[in-house]
């Protein structure tokens, strides 16, 4: 390393920032101090580094003095970092050999009233940057080849829309649907609010389009078995369940169904009618082909030559009872998850008697009844008095579904309007908690329903009972606006059931290592700005898999997901910062501890050694603290670099002075500290901020060593869980802190000196208070004796990992 030192040629530039810095910090002195450090071949100060001229100067110097590292002491790297990285590229250098000393946000501004200190701090920050730069590698941007193959999981309206958009844009889509036909829940619906146009009429053309789109490979009655790999190279195994009918041969003549002796309940009609063991899922199914349901079919149950009538009558002999599941392997570049929702099973709320009282139905059954009624088929008599009960399986902590399902109010209003229109003499009530008509022209639709004479009672019905004499349903509730109990008998009560993630969702979530939000739906990358992305590159969300949605939102989001996928694939390449961890295979002893620590499944074992997939790794760095062999390290924030920064920060600590080392995560805390500076909020100038990718990157080892090198207090500042891009960072941070605290205690050092904190970017005051509190605390505690500090290092690795690893 020493001899490496000698080879380096580092250029240092100190920026005045047009007075912002120079009015507080003695920039000349900073430049002068920097120049004294080995390998610094030039050190200048300049009014405006970010100006055209400033950048040009760097380029020229770099070429003239063939610099191999550049340190710019100016504003926050969050601010002008990207600019100067480009500058370096222009100078023919790797953009990753740039280090910035943040002397504006971290020195000049927060310590504007103590010039001395500000200058000292600036000098140290610059030194730290130099030491980090010294250890920078001339890395290049990582990149992956991406093709144009997309997997869409789920053939509901979301999946259909996304597939069509992608296919139309010329991408190759594989659409996988577990049911025999695409269409999803929308296919079951009667009409759509607020326009009341029939769902079938607007859906079936799209389904047909999917059916015969050259760019769409439709795989119905199929399930995803496994997904491996990553962006640009997802390996997918698909299970084709046996239909027992050859799709290519079947012409849907229907003879088989006529002959089939086995009647079963029709799931598509939510069990309100019957169909045969061999049937087509519904009238406009795509593909419009027959299939046999396994369990009820006599032949498939008893084998031999039981029944088999369908086979006998089939003119196409398309029926094959020996059909087996087929497995297909495909490779895709991106994936759109559109697994959709399931309605709440009202039997989980027995007090409403669903499945027990014959006149209590759920919202989806009501849809089917309305559809069929239009066709002249009466699946169930609705009678003259109909009640809708809202929020069944929504907004209900009792069953762990505290969220609003968003669609129930509107579909109930729609259903109420339709049944009222069917028979205006009907008395229709909606019992609600709040009517949420949030969408475009929804409120107006709500109003039309009121004008039709639908009565809205604000009160949640507590339980339903049957009048044994006439089988009618007794509904009792408080009219909370009237402050009176009201009661009535109804011919039909429809439970407006809420929605939850589809039963198939978890399987997919686990395969892709996606995150789930507290409501069990899939977590998007950012609730505001990345609503259809996931944290897994190349995986996008469409429709209700991400949360309850109505059809317009679902379609919009589906198109959004398609667009995001297209934007990514069109580049043909995927670039990413080389900020990833890697394993030193000499040191690795294959203990596999790191594998479980990685939330993204980026680490795999290859012939006895752990290997990290750079493309999958997000660079959170939590794995590093898990390696007993110290075999894992990462780019941009290597162990050596962080230690060097810590050392430098503490070297020039004077007698009686103390230092608070603050590790700040790049995403949130570091920016927060910038804002504190920008707001010129003063905090202890004894603090030294060290930028890290995540709180979880700060290993116990690093913390302990910080104390060893003379830190009097260490604060690890990480993003509040929700605003952190790294799912496990918070927990890992506290894990490391716990370990470190034990070691501190062993050495007789107060654990109060170590703090882990989670911030969001607006917690300016909280930050300032914390740092100043620590400043005061240290005034009392004083510095840590040398003996104690040395005690820390005795068998450090054993202390860190319990047992000694050979």
């Amino acid at each position, binding site marked *: 390393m020493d001899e490496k030192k000698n080879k380096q040629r580092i250029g240092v530039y100190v920026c005045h920032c047009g007075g912002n810095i120079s009015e507080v910090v003695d920039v000349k002195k900073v430049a002068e101090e920097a120049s004294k450090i080995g390998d610094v071949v030039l050190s200048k100060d300049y009014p405006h580094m970010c100006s055209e001229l400033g950048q040009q100067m760097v380029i020229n110097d770099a070429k003239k003095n063939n610099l191999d590292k550049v340190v710019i002491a100016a504003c926050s790297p969050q601010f002008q970092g990207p600019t100067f990285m480009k500058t370096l590229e222009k100078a023919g250098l790797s953009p990753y050999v740039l280090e910035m000393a943040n002397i504006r946000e971290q020195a000049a501004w927060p310590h504007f009233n103590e010039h001395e200190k500000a200058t000292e701090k600036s000098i140290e920050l610059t030194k730290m940057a130099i030491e980090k730069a010294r250890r920078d590698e001339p890395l290049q941007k990582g990149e992956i080849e991406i093709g144009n193959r997309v997997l869409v999981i789920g053939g509901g309206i979301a999946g259909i829309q996304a597939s069509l958009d992608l296919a139309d844009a010329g991408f190759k889509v594989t659409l996988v649907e577990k049911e025999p036909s695409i269409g999803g829940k929308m296919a079951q619906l009667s009409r759509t609010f607020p326009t009341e146009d029939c769902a079938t009429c607007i859906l079936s053309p799209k389904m047909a389009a999917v059916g015969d789109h050259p760019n769409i490979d439709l795989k119905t009655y199929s399930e995803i078995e496994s997904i491996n790999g990553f962006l640009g190279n997802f390996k997918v195994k698909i299970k084709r369940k046996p239909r027992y009918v050859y799709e290519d041969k079947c012409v849907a003549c229907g003879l088989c169904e006529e002959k089939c002796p086995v009647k079963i309940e029709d799931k598509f009609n939510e069990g309100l009618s019957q169909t045969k063991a061999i049937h087509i899922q519904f009238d406009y199914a795509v593909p419009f082909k027959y299939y046999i349901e396994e369990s009820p079919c006599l032949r498939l149950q008893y084998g031999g030559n039981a029944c088999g009538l369908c086979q006998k009558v089939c003119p196409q002999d398309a029926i094959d009872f020996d059909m087996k599941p087929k497995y297909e392997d495909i490779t895709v570049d991106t994936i759109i998850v559109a697994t959709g929702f399931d309605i709440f099973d009202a039997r989980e*709320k*027995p*007090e409403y008697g669903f499945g027990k009282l014959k006149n209590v139905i759920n919202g989806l059954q009501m849809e089917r009844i309305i559809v069929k009624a239009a066709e002249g088929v009466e699946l169930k008599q609705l009678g003259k008095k109909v009640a809708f009960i809202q929020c069944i399986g929504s907004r209900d902590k009792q069953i762990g579904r505290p969220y609003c399902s968003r669609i129930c109010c509107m579909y109930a209003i729609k259903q109420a309007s339709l049944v009222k229109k069917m028979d205006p003499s009907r008395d229709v009530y909606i019992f609600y908690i709040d009517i949420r008509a949030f969408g475009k022209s929804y409120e107006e639709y709500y109003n039309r329903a009121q004008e039709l004479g639908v009565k809205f009672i604000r009160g949640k019905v507590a339980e339903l009972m*049957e009048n*044994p004499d006439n089988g009618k349903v007794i509904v009792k509730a408080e009219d909370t606006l009237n402050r009176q109990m009201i009661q009535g008998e109804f011919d039909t009560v429809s439970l407006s059931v809420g929605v939850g993630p589809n039963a198939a969702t978890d399987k997919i979530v686990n395969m892709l290592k996606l995150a789930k939000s507290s409501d069990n739906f899939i977590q998007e990358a950012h609730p505001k700005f990345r609503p259809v992305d996931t944290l897994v590159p190349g995986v996008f969300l469409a429709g209700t898999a991400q949360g309850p949605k109505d059809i317009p939102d679902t379609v919009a989001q589906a198109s959004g997901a398609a667009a995001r996928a297209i934007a990514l694939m069109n580049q043909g390449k995927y670039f990413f910062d080389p900020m990833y961890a890697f394993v030193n295979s000499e040191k690795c002893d294959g203990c596999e501890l790191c594998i479980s620590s990685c939330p993204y499944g980026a680490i795999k074992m290859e012939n006895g050694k752990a290997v990290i997939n750079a493309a999958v790794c997000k660079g959170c760095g939590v794995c590093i603290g898990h390696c007993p062999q110290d075999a894992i390290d990462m780019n941009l924030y290597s162990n050596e670099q962080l230690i060097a920064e810590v050392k430098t920060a503490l070297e020039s600590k004077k007698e009686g002075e103390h230092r608070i080392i603050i590790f700040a995560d790049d995403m949130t805390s570091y920016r927060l500290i910038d804002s504190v500076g920008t707001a010129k909020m003063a905090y202890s100038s004894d603090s030294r901020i060290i930028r890290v990718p995540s709180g979880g990157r700060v290993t116990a080892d690093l913390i302990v060593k910080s104390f060893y090198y003379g830190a009097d207090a260490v604060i690890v500042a990480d993003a509040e869980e929700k605003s952190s891009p790294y799912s496990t960072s918070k927990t890992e941070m506290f894990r490391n802190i716990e370990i470190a605290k034990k070691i501190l205690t062993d050495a007789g050092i107060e654990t109060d000196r170590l703090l882990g904190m989670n911030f969001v970017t607006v917690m300016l005051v909280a930050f300032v208070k914390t740092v100043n509190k620590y400043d005061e605390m240290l005034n009392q505690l004083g510095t840590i004796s040398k003996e104690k500090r040395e005690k820390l290092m005795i068998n450090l690795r054993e202390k860190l990992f319990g047992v000694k690893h050979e």
Partner: protein
Amino acid sequence: MAMKLPYYPGCTLKTKAKNFETSTLAVAKELDIELVELPKWNCCGAVSSIVTDDLMHQLAPARNFVRVLEMNKSGIVDNEYRLVALCSMCYNTLKRTNLLLKNDHEKLKTINDFMYLEEDYNNEVEVVHFLEILRDIGFDKVKEKVKVDLSSLKIAPYYGCLLLRPKEIAIDNTEDPRIESDLLDSLGVKPIDNPFKKMCCGAHQTVQDKYAVARNTYTIVSGAIKAGAEAIITSCPLCAFNLDNRQREAKELYPDFEGVPILYFTQVMGLAFGVPEEELGFDLNYNDPRPLLREKNILK
């Protein structure tokens, strides 16, 4: 080898509901369960105190838990910390205090400090209801003991509140309980589903406003009758009192109201097991069930 369990009778089972206790002990014997009464147990307080700052009323249950510890110490029971309650109110009160002390170590400490004359309680005890014990040993076991054919009887289970609510103490699904009808099934009795089986009888309101309670009694009992029940079973002496004795007031309010006998579930078990009539103490039931039972040739 009989299963020996610490047993908490509760005040009422020593007085107004003697028949509940005698019948229970009788059927327990049949099932080879020995219910060992807690020494010097004290009244649980009947209702659990539910304001945050009232510890005084948690004392009574806590003391009884200490009694269980003593029973184990002195070897009266062998490492058996399940405390069996019969009366629903006692069950609820004991169980809730037990939960409270499990979840709140501060309060547990305060109580232990206050009861400095007793040995410390450290959440050893688990409060269970006799019905749970029956379910644990299995209703099929119960079935084996049936000697008398009760198939002609139509009985509606009544749960009331305190076996089911709040959820954390429920012995069965809070909204759709089955345990009592399962029991009746195993006894060869036809269980009748009463939609009002979970409705509160009015509990202690019976003291200050008996007619308010009578109105509930009317709803609950006639609900059962409408469903075709000839009798109702319960496991709570207060429910029993309200559903049984308050039929008197109900008749005042609703002249055409016809009552039915109210039985403790253990009395029905006793009948099925052929336990001698005197141990079932039908004389204490306000509406005498014996005529019905004779008419069905269950009693001579």
